[in-house]
């Protein structure tokens, strides 16, 4: 058993705290040379970057609270792709963006974009294999994570309590927001 296998098993058995994409990120031992991770330039071109940002915004759109783009999710995704994922995973991501480009995602209407992404999601669910990683899973996890850990995302979505001071069972009031404690990080 190599280290990566060991790690993914640990995570799976401890309750799947880490998702498959994150686990695959650990798979760097054979594929990544030290040079390839130092100062590696951006791996997305302008068009890919634009599609990535639009998809993130479709996942968490601006409503009465900020959307993915407002809180800087695209920059977070790019950073994580570069520093948190291996070449094969990066390639999967780029292929996903390429497929959307080929389907004219950028010029499609909002509704068409949503329809397109619904198809992508349905396909992903249909093709899901244990331990495999897909473009949709990746971008969704990174969007959700980037959004709900951003300052604006947290403050507009939750009742943020960095120092609660006590632990108490309570009853939910109507319209109550979820508490957030900052301990996910």
């Amino acid at each position, binding site marked *: 058993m190599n280290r990566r296998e060991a790690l993914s*098993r*640990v995570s799976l058995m401890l309750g799947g*705290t880490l998702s498959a994409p994150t686990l695959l990120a650990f798979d760097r031992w054979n594929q990544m040379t030290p040079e390839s991770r130092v100062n590696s330039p951006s791996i997305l071109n302008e068009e890919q970057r634009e599609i990535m940002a639009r998809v993130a915004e479709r996942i968490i759109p601006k409503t009465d609270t900020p959307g993915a783009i407002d809180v800087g999710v695209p920059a977070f995704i790019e950073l994580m792709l570069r520093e*948190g994922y291996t070449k094969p995973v990066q390639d999967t991501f780029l292929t996903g963006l390429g497929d959307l480009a080929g389907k004219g995602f950028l010029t499609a209407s909002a509704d068409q974009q949503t329809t397109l992404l619904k198809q992508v999601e349905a396909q992903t669910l249909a093709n899901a294999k244990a331990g495999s990683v897909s473009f949709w899973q990746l971008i969704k996890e990174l969007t959700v*994570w980037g959004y709900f850990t951003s300052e604006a995302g947290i403050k507009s979505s939750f009742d943020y309590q960095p120092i609660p001071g006590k632990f108490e069972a309570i009853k939910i009031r109507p319209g109550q927001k*979820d508490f957030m404690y900052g301990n*996910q990080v």
Partner: protein
Amino acid sequence: MNLNINAQKAQTYDAIVVGSGMTGGWAAKELTEKGLNVLVLERGYEIKHVEDYKTAMQDPWEFEHRGKITTVAAEEHYASMFFSAKEGSQFNFTNDKEHPYIQKRPFNWIRGYHTGGKSLIWGKHTYRWNREDFLANTKEGIGIDWPIRYEELVPWYTYIEKFVGISGQAEGLAVLPDSTFLPPMAMTAPEVHFKKSVAQKLNRPITIGRVAHLTKPQPWHTAVGRASCQFRNRCTRGCPYGGYFSSLAATLPAARSTNRLTILHNAIVKEIILDDHDQKAKGVRVIDQNTMEVREFYAKVLFLNAGTIGSTSILMNSKSARFPNGLGNDSDQLGRNLMDHHLAVGARADIEGFEDDYYFGARPGSLYIPRFRNWGNDKKRDYLRGFGYQGGAARADWSRGSTEPGFGADFKKRLTQPGPWKMSLTGFGEVLPDPNNRFYLSPDKTDKWGLPQVVFDADFSANDRAMRKDIMNDGAEMLEAAGFKNVTTYDNPAAHMGLGIHEMGTARMGKDPKTSVLNKYNQVHTCKNVFVTDGSAMASASNVNPSLTYMALTARAASYAVAQLKAKNL
């Protein structure tokens, strides 16, 4: 000549304690409080309580990778990946790349090389061992008999518990003796329901986890600068409130206040120096981890508290004409009987209902289900010993969005609401001592400091694997008894030693020097002024978390050592 004598004098103390972690902190406190001048040698870098907890007050958005681990960090901390895969705490876990070891059979060695050792990253579950834990070996003919009994530890448990501060509920159970408690933490509504159902239908008691958190600080806690736990559950980043017990927050400040404590950091103890005349240890040889400079320090008594593998390695590395196979190793038991707890097996369920039940605050800790198998009236199983569970029920938070289908405005809105309740139970099972489960020092591979690398060669036994089946099934049975939905079990056949993070047993105590390394006072049988009071000393593993017992043994041994010094026996 004079110069040399002066230099030697300046490096001479009454006692040397190796390691500043959970047990080293206690050795330092007890020995200084009893009047000894003590030198603590710590191989890692210095962490100052409060001021060096750099990430403790950081908000989520202040972390560059928002807590996610990078590929580089993943490689450097591979052993502790599950426990440290967080941007805010990875530096509290030892870098495996800089501190390599060899896995002949898979073993994850999870460490903390810095002030406080693993007391900065532990889970804080704190349980007494029970009477049977000290008798099981001799009754079943496994390993060797313990040279002590539960009754002898009781006053030491009580003494430690008071100072540590343990929140919990007294239950009067023989299987899980009560400690001296601070007020218990609350159970969530589904947990209360679970407890009642399991008591009624299966007659198994469940209690709230006993954790070393101050729920109601006492004067002796505030005296060392500790305050009440704030329920932030960011403990592995270090706690500026001293809300949980660590040697940084509690024992080291107590030792320091005696003015008899000296701590030296970056000091890797390489070996014990034996005095050829009287076969006693006269000091230790130390390598500075940064400058590589080698120095010697001397003392009348040595306490090894470098963690199980660390302390036993030092003994193995201390070779002399008298001890060609390592200090105190006449029995050839050094490094053998390596034990851990087996985990990564249990059950989970979804919970319907309780929609308006919620909670305020992040509770560090969980439920505890004491051992019920091979105990009392339970019919004998096809394996020896037993297991307990930690676990609990909580509402899913926004992170469920990573795996839940859907996207868009409704999806976003939904994730800002408390999610469904879920419950999970993880078993911690007892591993039996086995002389073939061992570690030894590599004959040829060394680390950066020229010290031989540790080679792990241990695995779970047939007994352990049989027990795992019951852990799964019994977990599921209890979740079903509570009427929870979608009950699933899990057991990873690849789970291996080390992940239980409770390594112990490699310099066991016993009555007979022919079969053990330490006597009943944690004293090396054949080198009386060396005491080993961490997990190395354990003759069996129980199924409850071990640190309270290590601490009790340490305080007891320190008291004995000082009495022996006074009686001029050391």
